[in-house]
C-alpha cells in the first residue's frame, strides 16, 4: 500500500531540496546592501502608515466557511460517482435528495446576499 506512494514522497523531497537550493544560490551570489528605504515595505514611495497586517473583512471568513461546506459536499460526490453504475436509479435518487437539501441552503445563502461582493 505505502509503496505506491513512496515515489511521491521522493519527488516531494527532491522538489523541496531544489527550491531551497535555488534560494540558497540567490542568497550566496546576491549582494547585500541594506538601507532604511530598501527595508521599509512598499507603499507607493510613501512612509508606511500603520502596521502592514491589519484585521480583514468578515466576508473572507464567510467565503471560507461556505467553501468548507461545499467542499465536503463535493467530497461526498466522489464515492457516489465511482459506484454510480452499480448504484443505478437508487443511487441517483439518493443523491437528488442530498443535493436538494443543500440547494435549499444555497438558495438561502444567495437570497441573504452572502454571495454579493459589493
Amino acid at each position, binding site marked *: 500500500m505505502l509503496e505506491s506512494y513512496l515515489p511521491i514522497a521522493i519527488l*516531494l523531497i527532491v522538489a523541496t531540496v531544489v527550491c531551497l537550493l535555488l534560494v540558497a544560490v*540567490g*542568497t550566496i551570489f546576491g549582494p547585500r546592501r541594506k538601507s532604511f528605504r530598501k527595508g*521599509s*515595505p512598499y507603499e507607493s514611495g510613501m512612509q508606511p502608515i500603520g502596521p502592514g497586517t*491589519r484585521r480583514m473583512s468578515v466576508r473572507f471568513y464567510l467565503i471560507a466557511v461556505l*467553501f468548507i461546506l461545499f467542499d465536503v459536499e463535493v467530497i461526498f*460526490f466522489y464515492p457516489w460517482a465511482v459506484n454510480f453504475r452499480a448504484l443505478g436509479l437508487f443511487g441517483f435518487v439518493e443523491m437528488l435528495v442530498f443535493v436538494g437539501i443543500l440547494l435549499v441552503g444555497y438558495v438561502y445563502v444567495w437570497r441573504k446576499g452572502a454571495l454579493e461582493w459589493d
Partner: protein
Amino acid sequence: MNDLGTNILIWVIHAVLLTVVLLTAFAYTTLLERKVLGRIQSRYGPNRAGPFGLLQPLADGIKLIFKEELTPAGVDRFTFLLAPVLAAVPAVVVFAVIPMGGKANFFGTDIHLTLAPNLNVGILFVLAITSVSVYGIVLAGWASNSKYSMMGSLRSTAQMISYELAMGLSLVALVVVAGTLDLNAIVDQQKELWFVFLQPVGAVIFMLAALAEVNRAPFDLPEAEQELTAGYHTEYSGMKFALFFMAEYIKMSVIAGLAITFFFGGYREPLPLFITRALPVLSVDNTPWLGPVYFSIKVVVLLFVQIWVRATLPRLRYDQLMRLGWKVMLPITLAWVMVTAFVVLLRS
C-alpha cells in the same frame, strides 16, 4: 518486479529528471509567453539573447541569481522564506501522478514512464494537492507586513477556494462517466474517444476553473498591478520571487497536463484511428516511449491556448469574479453533474 532498493534508485533518478524537465519547461514557457504575446501585439518579443531569443531564459535566470534578496523590516522571517517554497513544491508534486506513458524498457528493466502510476485515488490526490497550494500565497501575504501583499493574498486565496469547488465538481461528472479515480485507467478509456466529446461542458468548466485556480488571465486579479502593485509577492525579490514565478508557470503546465489526462486522451496519440490502424508503430501501445512525446506536444498546444486567452481577454473585476464563481459556475456544474448521471442512467 524489481526489488525495493532498485526501485528507490529508479524513483530518485526519475524524480530528479522530472524536476529538471519542469524547471526547463518553466524557463521556456516564459519565453513562449513573451514571444506569443509579442506576436499577437505586433512586435517581436525577446530576440537579442541567442538565435530567436532562445537564450533569454538563461540570461533572466543568471540575472535573478545575482539580485539582492531583500527582506523588508517587520517581516516574519520563517514564514517569509517558507511561503515561496510552499508555493512551488505542490506544483511540481502533482506531476508525480499525471500519466505520461505506459511501461517502457530501458537497459533491460521495465520502467513505468509515470512516476507514481498505481494510485487508485489519483483524482483525489490532485484535489488534495490543489487545496494545499493555497498556503504559499496566504502565508506570503501575511508574512510580508505590507498592505498590498496582504490584500493581494486575501483576494487570491478567496478566489482560489471559490473556484476549487467548480473544478472538483466538473471532475465528478467525469468520474460518473469513467467510473474510476485512477488517472491511468481514465487515459486508457480514451483509446477510441476522447472524453472531451462526452463531457464538453465539463471540459470547459474545468479549464475555466483551473485558470482561476492558478490565478492566470483573465482571472489574474492578485496581480492586478494597477490596484495591487504585484499582489502577494510585492515584497519578494531575487530567487524567492523567482520561485513564485516558477510556481505560476509550472502550474500552467499542470493545468495543461491535467486537462489532457482528463479530456484529451492523455499521452495517447493525437491521431485519428485509421492512421494508427495503418501504421501501428505510431500507437503508444506498440511504441511506449512515444507517450511522453505526444504528451509534450499536447502540453505545448494547451500552453499556447492559455497565452492566447491572456492576450485576448480583459481582466475581470473582483465582484464579477466572485459572482461568476459562486452564482454561475457552481450551479451550472452541479446541474451538469446531475444531467450526466441521468444520461448514464438512461443508457445503462
